[in-house]
């Protein structure tokens, strides 16, 4: 592909004690691409995303964001990243506006750009009516949207979303999917999810993790070639489980 790389992870490995949680995971993401990260519960999706976002140090391997090494040029790399973790990091006693302003300033948005960035993020996530409310009083769906707004407010080149549509109602899910598609035009997006139809409708490429290993990394077309995506997923993960047991 000719478009430039925005994120590349090479040979990420993570040990917890003597147990290998993530085993030699390599990923690449190009500008304008939406990558879906799939896998069973406990396959290591959230852990991988945390390492990509620089929240967790890999035992070995390296992550580069926009050509900045996350361990050596952490500040420059992290400035190009927006991250929504599994539990949105929200200060419950701040108002939505104050919180988004704070997180924009944290990510080095200048005072001059701030009003525009804030307005855009709120409009994209449908938060215009709740700007002055305390985050703690919002419903789960709105809190999730504030979490997404926090990840995209500084208009980063790479957006990492860990299960972005959890806890949303069907209309909101549709809105967020439209938003992710829109983000996919200007920046690169990685999202993890359990929902296969989400991957089908949003992603250009899918990576399937099983027991901390990458067992599939290709375009959706490849996954479609044999079958529909659901049976491909089940076939792939089942093959791996059988293979693992002698």
């Amino acid at each position, binding site marked *: 592909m000719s478009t430039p790389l925005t994120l590349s992870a090479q040979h990420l490995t993570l040990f917890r004690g003597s147990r290998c949680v993530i085993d030699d995971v390599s990923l690449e993401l190009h500008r304008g691409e939406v990558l879906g990260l799939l896998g069973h519960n406990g396959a290591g999706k959230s852990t991988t995303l*945390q390492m990509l*976002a*620089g*929240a967790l*140090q890999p035992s070995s391997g390296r992550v580069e964001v926009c050509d900045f090494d*996350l*361990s*050596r*040029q*952490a*500040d*420059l*790399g*992290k*400035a190009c*990243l927006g*991250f929504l*973790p599994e*539990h949105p*990091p*929200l*200060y*419950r*006693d*701040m108002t939505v506006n*104050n919180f988004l302003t*704070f*997180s924009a*300033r*944290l*990510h*080095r948005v200048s005072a001059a750009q701030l009003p525009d960035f804030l307005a855009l993020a709120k409009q994209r996530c449908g938060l215009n009516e709740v700007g002055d409310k305390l985050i703690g009083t919002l419903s789960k769906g709105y809190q999730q949207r504030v979490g997404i707004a*926090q990840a995209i407010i500084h208009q980063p080149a790479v957006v990492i979303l860990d299960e972005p549509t959890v806890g949303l109602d069907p209309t909101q899910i549709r809105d967020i999917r439209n938003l992710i598609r829109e983000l996919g035009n200007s920046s690169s997006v990685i999202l993890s999810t359990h929902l296969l139809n989400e991957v089908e409708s949003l992603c250009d490429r899918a990576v399937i993790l099983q027991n901390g290993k990458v067992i599939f990394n290709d375009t959706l077309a490849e996954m479609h070639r044999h079958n529909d995506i659901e049976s491909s997923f089940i076939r792939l993960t089942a093959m791996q489980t059988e293979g693992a047991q002698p």
Partner: protein
Amino acid sequence: MIRLLARKEFRCLFASPSTWWMLALLQFIFAWFFLARLDDYLLVQAQLAQSGNAPGATISIAAPLANVLSIVLMMLIPLFTMRLIAEERRNQTWILLSTAPISSTHIVLGKFLGLLALLSLIIAACGLMMCAIALGTHVDVGLIASNVLGVWLLAASYAALGLYFSALTRQPIVAAFGALAVSLGLWMLEMSDSIVRVLSPSVHFQALNSGLINSSDLIYFGLFICAFLGLTIHHIRRERGGAR
């Protein structure tokens, strides 16, 4: 960046009702103590006036007040510091800071200064109370100033200590008890008569409490604060990884 974090921390402390309760209660306790000391002083004032070198109003009212303030702050500061890092970890908001493009030094200093701003407010309110003696009699401004300085330095030391314990754990209660236990331990060292006495912050506060500003005490407080802030920064940096 440091200012942004400090301001956010200060605002968040004021957003919770518990802070207001605590401030109100503290003012009440100090005012009670202040008036009680004032009463005592007025009772014995006539006898004191007959002796040659009588203690003045400032040393019999303001200095004990500063002493009480120092002990109350020792107990109180761990409750504030536990929120700074340990509670953020438990509420899963810490990840916002750890993935932000800011250095660990900025995070730690921002949090420290935000808390110090609140503590300064408490101390300033108490300082004003001491100055209220001026309404009735002549005050020793130097003594009040050295007391306020001493309490402020002591508060900053306990805040740095508490921040370190907050960085060590995910459990706010553990952070609070750890910091309290160590502060109490250091306070008790004051009673021992061996050389380890000099490790205790309250020993160094005693001189300031009696109006004596030694540069060695100032250096001690400076070192104490820098040491614990340094340890905190080191710990956070190692945890976050990265070059800085």
